[in-house]
Every structure is written in C-alpha cells, then in structure tokens.
C-alpha cells in the first residue's frame, strides 16, 4: 500500500509519510481543544481533570439549576432567533438587489455591506456602546439584535451571493416572459432555486449572533446578559467548571450545526427534492 504512487508524478505514500505525520499533528492541535472540554465537564472535581477520576453530572446540574445561566441562555436564543430572521431577510434582499443591479454605486454599497465582517469587533463594540448610551439601547434585547443583525448581514450576503452566481437568471426571465410579476417571479422561481444558500445563510446568521462575545460584553448586562457575556465574565474572574459544561453543550451544538450545514449542502447538490 505504502509503495503505491500517491500522485501522478509517482511519489509514493511512503515518501510522503512525514507530511501525513505533520498534518496529523496540526489537525490534532486544531481538534483537541474543541473536544477535550466534553469529557472534562463530567469531572466531579473543582479542578478540571483529564481523564476525570470521578465522573459526575455536577456541573451540568450547576448550569441547569442556576436561574442566571438559564436566563442568559434564553436571552441568547431570543436574540439569535430574531437576528436570524432579520439578517436573512435584509441580507437576501441586498444580495439579490446587488446581483441584478447595474448601478454605478454597486461596488460601494457592496463594500459597505461587507464592512461589518472586515472591521475588528472591538470597533463595532465601542461604537454601538457609545451610540446606544445616547439612545437608551444599552442592555436591551433590541440593541443586541440590531448589532448582531449588522454583523450577520455580510455572512448571509455571501451565502446567498454564492447561490445567485450559480443560478441561471434566464429562468427568472422565462418566468417574467410567461407573465409573472417581478415579485412573483422571485418568490416562485428564484427563491426556490437558491433556498439552500438562504438556509446556510440563516445558519451563519444564527451562529454569528449566538457565539458573538465582544459586542455583548459592552452592550449587555444584568437581566439581559447573553450567555457568552456571562461566560466571558466567569472565565476572566475564575475558572468555574460550570463553563466546561456549557462549553460542551456549545461544542455539541456546533457539531450539530456543522452536520446540518453539510446535510443541507449535500441535499442541495443532489438537485431539487421531489416534494
């Protein structure tokens, strides 16, 4: 097996063994920190151990029975859900508009809309903190939603833009030619064709909001603290194993999201479903 050529220029697997080893180490470096908190969160000890000497659900109990943790989780879910809806609608509209527009200002608008993805989060954080203070939006759900929607729009736009670039605009023209109004043509022909991209844009939007920390640190506190804000404060002040339990749940969530994303794309690639 090892002596068989791995490339068309006849380099064997044996000759590339060092490369496989090196890449294996890098992958281990990437993956282990993402996964190691899961077994450690089942430790009974105040100091997290690996492998745990005594297994227990103690830190999960600490999470689920704490009204503060529950409340902040609820805030994060609410903000994430509303952000997903808003960002998907605004981002899809913007992406579609820019795709079809021939206006000279198109590059400027596009550049402006991807800006939230490019600038350091700390800028966004102090900016909204400063303005929200004048508008009374600090520590409100609405303030968080507005900021998170802004951050999520570029991701939705990129996902939908990918879908649109693979979409044959002649289909929409055909619909128009058959008598559909522009809105109807979009809703009945274009949108169904790019729905996979819109779905993955939604996924991005939710994750962007749910995982966002830096802006939340500044503009959420007290009863409206997000989960990440509370975790951040907790990690900075002491290493509380409850965070390990929450982190494990978040790791599981991200794996679910990743698998869901792959599944959506797989389905998308195999063509429109019969239903």
């Amino acid at each position: 097996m090892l002596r068989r050529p791995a490339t068309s220029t006849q380099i064997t697997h044996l000759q590339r063994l060092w490369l496989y080893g090196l890449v294996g180490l890098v992958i281990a470096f990437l993956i282990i920190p993402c996964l190691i908190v899961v077994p450690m969160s089942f430790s009974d000890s105040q100091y997290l151990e690996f492998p745990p000497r005594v297994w227990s659900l103690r830190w999960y109990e600490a999470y689920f029975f704490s009204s503060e943790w529950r409340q902040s989780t609820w805030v994060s879910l609410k903000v994430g859900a509303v952000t997903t809806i808003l960002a998907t609608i605004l981002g899809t509209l913007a992406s579609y508009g820019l795709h079809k527009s021939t206006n000279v200002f198109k590059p400027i608008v596009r550049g402006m809309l991807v800006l939230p993805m490019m600038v350091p989060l700390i800028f966004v954080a102090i900016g909204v903190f400063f303005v929200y203070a004048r508008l009374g939006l600090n520590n409100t759900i609405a303030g968080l939603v507005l900021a998170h929607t802004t951050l999520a729009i570029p991701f939705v736009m990129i996902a939908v833009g990918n879908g649109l670039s693979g979409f044959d605009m002649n289909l929409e023209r055909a619909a128009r030619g058959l008598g559909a109004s522009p809105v109807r043509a979009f809703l009945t022909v274009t949108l169904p064709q790019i729905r996979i991209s819109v779905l993955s844009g939604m996924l991005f939007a939710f994750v962007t909001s749910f995982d966002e920390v830096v802006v939340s640190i500044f503009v959420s506190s007290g009863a409206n603290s997000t989960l990440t804000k509370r975790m951040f404060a907790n990690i900075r002040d002491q290493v509380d194993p409850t965070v390990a339990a929450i982190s494990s749940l978040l790791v599981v969530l991200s794996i679910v999201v990743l698998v869901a994303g792959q599944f959506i794309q797989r389905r998308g690639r195999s063509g429109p479903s019969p239903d």
Partner: protein
Amino acid sequence: MTVMVQETEPVVLNNSLLQRSRNLQGISFIGLSLPAAMLVAAVLIIPFSWLAWLSLFDAAGNLSTENYVRLLRPAYVDSFLTTFKVAGLVTAICVLLGYPVAYLLSQLPQRATQILMVFVILPFWTSVLVRTYAWLVLLQRQGIINQWLLSSGLISEPLPLVHNMTGTVIGMVHVMLPFLILPLYASMKAIDPVLLRAAANCGASPAQAFRQVFLPLSLSGLSAGIALTFVLCLGFYLTPALLGGGRVAMWSTQIADMVAKFANWGAASALSVVLLVVTGGILWGVNRFMRVPDAWGGKR
C-alpha cells in the same frame, strides 16, 4: 429583387425614454439593499465616524491633536509593538503549520479531502470563547499539559503557559489557522495538476517540481492568507483578553480598557482610528501588490 425599408418617416430612437427606464431599473434593484445599508450605517458607520470626530477634540471640547499626541507615550508605543509582535508571530506560526495542511488537502483524493476538511472547519464553527476556555484549562498551572509534563518528569515546576504571551499566541494560532488554510487551499486547488506532470516531463524531480512550479503558483493565495490572518490578529480582542491575563497589552484590549475602565472616549477613538488606518493600509497595499501575481494565476 432587393428588399429595403424606405425610410420615409423620421427615425424614432427613444434614447431618452430608454435611458430613464434603465436608470429607474438600476435604482430599484440597488434599492433592495437599502434597508441593510441603512442598518450598517446606523450601527457601524455613523457611530464610528462620530467617535473619529470626537477624537479630534480635547477634554475641554477644543479642537486639538492631544488624543493622537498621547499615543506616542511609551505605554501606547509598547502596546503598538506588542500588537505587531503577536500578529507577526501568530501569522508566521500559522504559515508553518497551515501550508502543509493546505497542500495535503489540495493533493488528496476528493473523499479524503472532505474528511480532512471537516477537521479544519469544526474549529471554525466552534465558539471562540469555548476554544479559548479550553486552552485556559489545558495550559493553566494545574492544567493537563503541566500535569503531564510533571508526571513524565520532564519538568519539576509547572511552566507558565498562560496569562502571558505564550498562551495568547497559542490561543490565537488556534483561532487564525483556518483563516490561513482555507484561502491557501482554494488557491492551491486552482493550480492545474497537469503543470506538475509537465514539470516532471521536463525532468524535474518531485522536490524540484514543488519548489519551481507549485510553490511560486501558491504564493498569491499564501499572501492573501497572510494578509487576512495578520489583519485579523491586529484587531483581535477575545483571546488576548482571556489568555493574556492582563499582561499582554494589545491594541484591542487597550481600547476596551480605556472605554470600560476610564471612559476615556477621546483616547480610545484615536487609537481605533490609527488601528483602522493601519489595517486599511495593509489591505490596500496587499491588494495592489497582489494584482501582478493574479494576472498570471487567473487566466490560463
């Protein structure tokens, strides 16, 4: 028999009518992006411009360069240097670790690539906070790595791996590595494998073919990845704040401190403006510099 239209009537070209209709269409489509653009303006552009404007005034409200002059104090200059040092170090390590991964990804058969790609993307999807926390747990004094090193007898005292530069760099490399690997992989994937066959056919050994053909062709993707990684490092807040333990004063942590601890908006804004200019300058420079390699990488 000749067939020709006799133009007896004046020619109607409808130029102005058509132009107006075209303009209207252009506006109506770009208008769809208006709600999103307004939100971005309200949440990002206006607040930041407002802060940038404020940075031009001193505490008494007079126009002054005070906020910028203050940035020349040693504390700020140090943070400036620290930021560049960390960003440079993290980027360099990312290149060393990321290049082989991207290379292998681009060379493996599709199935293997898909599997390997999951390992690169999983960290991407995992919350930065969770990963930073994991590193804290791994690297702290009683953390796993120190425990293993102690029990294996390699060290007698726990190593200070976190709440310092070491921890910050390790944590940031972990966050940034996918940002380097993904664009690099994309550019390597675009290199036609037949070029390596052609090199072999010309008499190049695999090592020569890599050095003389593959490496030069991957440089445009590599420089894009380096620029992205470096710029992201410059403004990165979370990992230095948590793994630096207050000892690694980077730009972003200083901006946060000035706002949160001292409510010194003028200084924070000035620092942000400088950071923005530097970041924008690097991206602009790289973009300009990249034009040349793109010319031969793009079309074939």
